[in-house]
């Protein structure tokens, strides 16, 4: 316990002191994001993530957006374990034929109103997996997509910024 406390005191708040150049931008983006989310979703935006055939680097960046440095949660965005708790569905990867049914079922299980976000180049047009015998198509061919976040994979700050730009647009 003593070790934890000591380490904690010495380390300080990492969210502030890593990558100071990018910090101003993220902080101001984040503040605005928080206000927008409060206004639109009551208190917070809940996202359910589904991987339909990604290489997992996209997942890794989404997880990174939740680490103590970017700490997406402090702006009111939460990743939830069940589609029943979600406002938004976040999809990564081209849609493998094997995931088609699971993707549709997950979407159907979400309460209205709901919207779909895609993350990564694969999710937009199957990316490097274009033309495979086993892709059922891009996500937009299967579900109505409201927002796409480009990149291979998009960085955590790109993910946060895209979310803000999107919410601002639909203000």
């Amino acid at each position, binding site marked *: 316990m003593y070790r934890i406390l000591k380490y*904690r005191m010495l380390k300080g708040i990492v969210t502030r002191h890593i990558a100071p150049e990018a910090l101003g931008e993220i902080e101001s983006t984040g503040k605005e994001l928080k206000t927008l989310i409060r206004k639109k979703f009551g208190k917070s935006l809940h996202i359910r993530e589904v*991987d339909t055939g990604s*290489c*997992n*680097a996209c997942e890794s960046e989404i997880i990174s957006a939740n*680490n103590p440095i970017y700490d997406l949660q402090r702006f009111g965005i939460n990743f939830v374990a069940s589609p029943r708790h979600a406002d938004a569905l976040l999809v990564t990867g081209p849609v493998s*034929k*094997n995931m088609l049914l699971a993707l549709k079922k997950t979407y159907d299980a979400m309460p209205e109103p709901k919207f779909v976000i895609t993350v990564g180049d694969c999710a937009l047009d199957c990316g490097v997996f274009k033309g495979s015998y086993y892709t059922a198509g891009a996500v937009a061919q299967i579900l109505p997509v409201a927002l796409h976040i480009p990149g*291979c994979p998009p960085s955590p700050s790109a993910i946060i910024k895209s979310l803000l730009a999107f919410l601002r647009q639909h203000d």
Partner: protein
Amino acid sequence: MDCAGIINEIKAKFPGFSVISAVQNYPDEICLYVRPEIFKDTCLVLHKILLSPVKMLFALDERKMANKFTVHCVFLSAKSGQWVTVAIDVPAENPCFDSLAKSIYSASLFEREIYEMFGIKPEGNPDLRRLRLHDEVWPQGSFPLRKDFAGAPKNISAENLPAYKFSKVEGNGIFEVPVGPVHAGIIGPGHFRFSVAGEPIINLEIRLGFTHRGVEKLFEGKFLTQALRLAESVDGESAFAHSLAFTQAAEKIAGISISLQAAYARAIFLELERMYNHANDIGGIAVDVGFSFPAAIASIIKESILQLNEKLTGSRYLKGINTVGGVLRSPEEHEIRMVSGFLKEIKKDFNQLAKILTTSVSFMDRVDTTGVLKKKTAEDIGVAGLAGRACGIALDLRKNFAGVYHEAKFKMAVEQSGDVLARLRVRIAEFEESMRLVEFFLSKITPGETAFPQPQRKEGEALGFAESWRGPVLYWLKTDCNGAIERCKIVDASFCNWQGLSYAVLGNIIPDFPLCNKSFDLSYPGNDL
């Protein structure tokens, strides 16, 4: 060891043995072509002599040129640092070969794969269920890796397709818990079916293939440099290991030997990849017992390394840095200094992380003796890499093959107990060793030097390999006379190791499953291809 050496060794155990031809195209690859009748016995003898499970078993469709299929079975000779392949021809009509599965268990999954992708029957294999082409969406009789495959079958009606048959545990009081394919976390998809009697798990069947994207087929027809991008996207968290294994095979074919500088730079990137992933896993193990503070430290370490990767290569996941013939960019003088500074910080954080975990009694209580994988089981299944080293299988391609790691006096981490704690200990030891290795290679590197030869378009076949953070990643490549890829077979360590997980959880309770799972941390996309 040369061809004659291995032939004599086989003959000593198997007097009826003879080869059609034996070739050694590269110092570390021996290939023996034999008659199909003695395929099984030859493999069995090699399996015993080399103490190696089946490392790769795959088919090629050569019907157009030679009216036949061929099947290759690859073993590892750890002692001599070589790959030994047994190859046979399989007739184009009624294609089949003698199954190895009943004698060498590690061949089972590969044989199922050959049957599903090529329609070549491993005669005598009791389980021919498909791995990736799910029965519910793909009709029987359509084989994607055959050369005359004309694309996905159209107008399939789901009603006519059968459902997958899970193995059933019968008896009083057994109940089944199905989980997935979509899980609660931000993670890939897979289906886990537990059979439990009271609390303990008595069977776990893992059904994968959900992220199958037909990668091996996509490689076909591409040129080496084009295909590299695809290799990096097979498994994004080991993007560099995959690209390394691919380029190694490509370089062998093109007859390029890379510069020592490039070899150092590659080793640095490979170790950085290992470090961010090991940190991530150690954090994951802490999360799964509900110990969030060390998990936060681990994610800070991971983020620091990702940022370091970006500074060095322009990509957080080390994509686009490796190329056939070398690396596109190697660290500059000031970057070398920067990395050393970074490593010092990381070392401090990592020591804290390791100490907090190993001095917490309740944490140790959760991981000690949980999820034991026995050495014998692991050997039979062909578990490789970190999961193997945690139960006493002392194999690491960095150790077994000559190269810059020998110069660095690489120390392999091995544990005996095979539980979650052992896997955690191996991870911690490997992370520390990787830090040392990065420092060592940095001290050897001449700043900024990146010259590399342009690859020639050539015909050939070769095996490339890399020890990723999970274990061996193997690429077997064959190109045609224009230099286009004819066949690319990929084996990620996850392919066999997933089975290891299903044995490790037996006797444990379902709430400990996430912990066991995280301690293996296997790849969905690397397995599903």
